[in-house]
């Protein structure tokens, strides 16, 4: 289970970076979204992935290492909300750029870098 999860996180990170290196706006958007998923998923797994254990400790002492730590899950919620906000901003921004500049190629967004 842990191996699969770490592989998924690795694939998400590399896929998102690969997509962000492409020229197309659309791939950039997908890349940003996947990057957000990768970080939040990583944060989520930090709490430990366990099955069939109640979320609260009771008197019938369950060993603590069989329980998932709830704090990273709470942090994950916060991180998801923030990254969704930023992703929406990116989508609207790129739509606006497309309307204004009339291109869909990131390499053509170079007027601010020219020396003149």
């Amino acid at each position, binding site marked *: 289970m842990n191996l699969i999860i770490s592989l998924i996180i690795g694939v998400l990170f590399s896929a998102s970076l690969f997509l962000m290196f492409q020229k197309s706006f659309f791939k950039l958007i997908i890349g940003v979204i996947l990057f957000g998923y990768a970080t939040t998923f*990583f944060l989520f797994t*930090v709490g430990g992935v366990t099955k069939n254990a109640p979320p609260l400790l009771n008197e019938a002492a369950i060993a603590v290492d069989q329980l998932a730590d709830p704090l990273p899950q709470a942090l994950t919620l916060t991180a998801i909300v923030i990254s969704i906000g930023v992703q929406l901003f990116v989508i609207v921004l*790129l739509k606006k750029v497309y309307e204004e500049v009339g291109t869909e190629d990131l390499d053509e967004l170079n007027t601010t870098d020219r020396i003149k």
Partner: protein
Amino acid sequence: MTDTIPTLLLFPLWVLLTAFIFCVLSWQRAKVQSAIAIVAGFLYLATAAGLFMEVYQNGIQVIQIGNWPAPFGITLVADLLAAGMVLISAVVAFAIILYSLQDLSAERKKKGFYPVLLVMMFGVCGSFLTGDIFNLYVWFEVMLVASFVLIVLGNSKKQLEGAVKYVTLSFISSGFLLTGSAILYKLTGTLNMADLSVAIAQHPNQELITVSAVFFLTGFGIKAALFPFFSWLPASYPTPPISVVGLMAGLLTKVGVYALIRFFTLLYTHDLPVTHSVLLVLAGLTMFFGVLGAIAQRNFKKILSFHIVSQIGYMIMGLALFTPLAIAGSIFYIIHHILVKTNLFLISGIVKITNGHYALSKLGGVYDRYPFVTVLFAVSAFSLAGIPPLSGFWGKFILAKAGLESEAYVIVAVSLLVGLLTLFSMSKIWVSVFWSATPESDSNLPQLDGRTLFRRYYCLLLASVFLTLCTLGISFYPDFLISFSEQAAGQLLNPDSYINAVLNQ
């Protein structure tokens, strides 16, 4: 246990949040929002000064939100560095709000410039005061999202292009911060900075701690525009109106630098030869490549933007040398830089009003027509280049002295060379904007004489004069700021007082 809760810590945050709410309530009414913003700017300055005095006299102030004990609850801490940064951010914010009253068009104000600006200051102030790494991430996001909006406000083509780069890289940097926090939490089981400092020192697996340090170095490095990550800054900063650039150029990268200083003095001191050597190399490269960029440019705002990058190198140099004097030098340099850099951008805006351009080839004759503006520029420009007796000289002098004392001759040589190149690129602005003959004027531009300029744009000039007076203050009476920097550096290098203040409340 203290009897009174140190609520002074909450006042700056409270002022900004309340002002934001009032601004949103008066949406679309530019005049009401301007009035609220200027009052809020003044109150923020007053409360920040109050907090600073309290910390300076009575030591570190801590507040646990909701009275949850330290490693579990949300902690706000103000040590000398944090309080100093809050105060200087308030000074700059006040100047910017004053400047924006006449700089921005009513249309931009109606689109919500003031509410967003107040939220951004809220995020900046929170980033300085928080004592918890996850909260730091959240404060950073508050600040970043607000800055995204500020940078595209007005929707010009250049702004949008710059914003794509800025937003994407900022998002990646936040991802790195979050991943770094996750690793640290997995390793130590805590997110409170004071508690982390103790836990990291006792952790058996020091190599993994260094891995998390790399994540934070990258995340904050992108925010602070360190060497390999700085390309977003000159691409996006020159695009929005001056009121926005001035604030961002002055403050936002310095929040990244502040976080680096906090993390690499309080948390990551376990493996100094590795972490701080990397920082030292990055500092040298940042200085050098930043100033090379500035030399190549021929646009007022772009030269100033590249200077930000090279100046960040000096601040990180002090942190990397890691002696009391060097860190004091860093702190002095940050405060000097925030004042001077903001002021230079404000003056570039005033020059633009007179000529309608930022390109050096189309500017000229400002010295003939507006000697007063020239004096304002000269103070800031020569201070940035490090001409004695202005404030930049003291910063560079302390850093060079600290470098020589710790026998880091290469970085001192680089920093002096970069100082020279900074002076060269500043003199390019000086010669072509202020000394050269007035160029053929565009017939559609009104020709203002000095007196009309002052009468019509007095807010712009007042803001610039205010910052210039602050610069002159720390230039001619540097004793207070130097002793403050030394005390703040002392607190940073002996984190016991910080840890005790947070954990033994």
